[in-house]
């Protein structure tokens, strides 16, 4: 589904390279965890995949379902099935959550040549998914993420994911700022979306999240490169030994 080959990325207005030859192959149905110390390039990877401004790809390629992902607008990527759950979800005053979800879903359907959902169908569709994530009707009426607690913001991200039904979910530090109960709700929401047609990239600093969202593969990202890959047991190793080994290796 996703094939990243020798990806080199730098900031648009700085010479410093952040990703230095990252390669990764993700197939449908797989859950990949990317772990790494701060500053290793985890968030940059998520932004480059979702199409945020400010980054320049100097080398390498990213193919998504066989197409050149890097050539697409962020909205085209979304319509093709890429979804980024933000580490820090953005507050958008004045745009009601329900309206936002409706415009987003219908924009994607339109881009794919599908029929837009009728309002009653859409409402039913969202309410069902919101209930599973303990998201109240009142929250849906509020502007996007405005005044939401940290946990509410993360649940709202997962709700968007559940509504938009992407084929590739990128979760950027979804566990940050969550207590254990909130983490369980979010993880349950994510696990409910696991399917043979859907792939996930779970970016995290800590192993804790991976107790709840159990990955098929774990990769260690350090200084812009994947320096080690393994199964889920690698996460436990990292938890025990820390990242020191990898940081030193690069230095």
């Amino acid at each position, binding site marked *: 589904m996703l094939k990243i080959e020798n990806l080199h990325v730098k900031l648009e207005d700085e010479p410093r390279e952040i990703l230095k030859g990252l390669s990764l192959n993700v197939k449908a149905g797989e859950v990949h965890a990317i772990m790494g110390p701060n500053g290793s390039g985890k968030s940059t990877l998520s932004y480059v995949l979702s199409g945020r401004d400010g980054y320049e790809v100097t080398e390498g390629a990213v193919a998504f379902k066989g197409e050149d992902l890097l050539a697409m607008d962020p909205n085209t990527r979304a*319509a093709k099935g890429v979804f980024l759950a933000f580490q820090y979800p953005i507050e958008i005053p*004045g745009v009601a959550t329900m309206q936002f979800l409706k415009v987003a879903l219908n924009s*994607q359907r339109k881009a794919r040549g599908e029929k837009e959902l009728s309002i009653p169908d859409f409402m039913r569709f969202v309410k069902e998914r919101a209930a599973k994530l303990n998201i109240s009707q009142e929250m849906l009426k509020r502007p996007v993420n405005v005044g939401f607690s940290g946990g509410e913001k993360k649940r709202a991200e997962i709700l968007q994911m559940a509504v938009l039904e992407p084929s590739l979910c990128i979760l950027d530090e979804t566990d940050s700022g969550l207590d254990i109960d909130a983490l369980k709700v979010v993880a349950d929401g994510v696990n409910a979306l696991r399917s043979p047609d859907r792939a996930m990239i779970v970016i995290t600093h800590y192993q804790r999240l991976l107790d709840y969202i159990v990955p098929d593969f774990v990769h260690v990202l350090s200084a812009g490169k994947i320096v080690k890959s393994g199964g889920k047991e690698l996460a436990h190793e990292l938890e025990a030994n820390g990242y020191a080994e990898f940081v030193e290796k690069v230095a």
Partner: protein
Amino acid sequence: MNIALTKTPAEEAFGIALPNRRMEEWRWTDLRARIDRPYPAHQNTVAAKTDVDRLIASSPFAKIKTHRIIFVNGSLDQARSNFTGLTFEMGVPTSSAMDDPLIHLNGAIEPAGLTLRFESNMDVLVEIMHITTKGAARSMALRNCIEVADGASATIIETYLGEGDYVLSSVMEFEIGVGARLDRVKVEHESATATHLSHVVTSMAKDAKLNEFTLTSGGALNRQNGTYTFLGENADAKIAGAYLLNSKQHADTRLVIDHAVPHCTSREVFKCVMDDHARGIFQGKVIVRKHAQKTDGKQSSHALLLSENAEFDAKPELEIYADDVVCGHGATAGDINHDHLFYLQSRGIPEAEAKSLLIGAFVGEAFDGIVNDTMREAMVTFAENWLGQR
């Protein structure tokens, strides 16, 4: 200091001097320089029925049931107006003697107008419309007075629509009685080549409530003055406004809120969207007199600049003589927030649509001041159409 200037052709035609940029309140809007040709009054332009009908139908409130009082080319159109159940008196009110250039100009053009009096809580929306049809360059003036008696309430809509090159001057006086309530919505959607000059004089008695919203979207040149005076305690004024401007449109609003008595509240919220070479100005002055303790006055003006050539100027002025008050002001100007835009795009919303959504959300905060749901929705639709034409 009065510096004698040679009269311009426009000043000759009006018979009075126009304000110019040497006057502090007019520094951004030099009417003397901008009104660069004569606009004679009383041209008695014959209006074609189809033109009038078309313009009436173009009102954002066309589908809302209102009692319409319709002025066409500066004169009351009795036949088209509906006065059923209204208490009114024909003729221009003379009460306002304020020394203000726009009120002088209004007098010089010899306005048409009437006084409407609301004695109780009438469940009707009264819409005062001014329609200008195509014709020779000319000036027209209206002066109306709305009295809301003690304990009464009223909803007044003003719509200004037109075609062609003209100067329209409108003076409105609002007297809100003890415990009375006024909801006012004004839509300025004049012709793209027109000049709209207005002055609103509002007084509020004890426990009076004002909810006001002004949309400024038409005209080449727009100047709107407002004077709001608190005459009795515990009165409350909420004044909101929105600009939707493009091409070379110029809109300048100057409001003066006079807290002459204690315990009154005023809120001003202006949300201004400027595209292309448009220029928006907001000047808000709040005066708190010596005895007006416990005054709560807040003012904010925010601009969204959609083009590098658009401009916004804000000038808050606070003149506070009392020592136990809460007053504040804030002004911001910026372009669309890129983080917001990326977030929406990352969910599949194309850039143009995402921008419309964000602009609509920005300006929508000013619409929240409109009490009547149907009217608020009409304003949202108007904004959507405006955005759709970008």
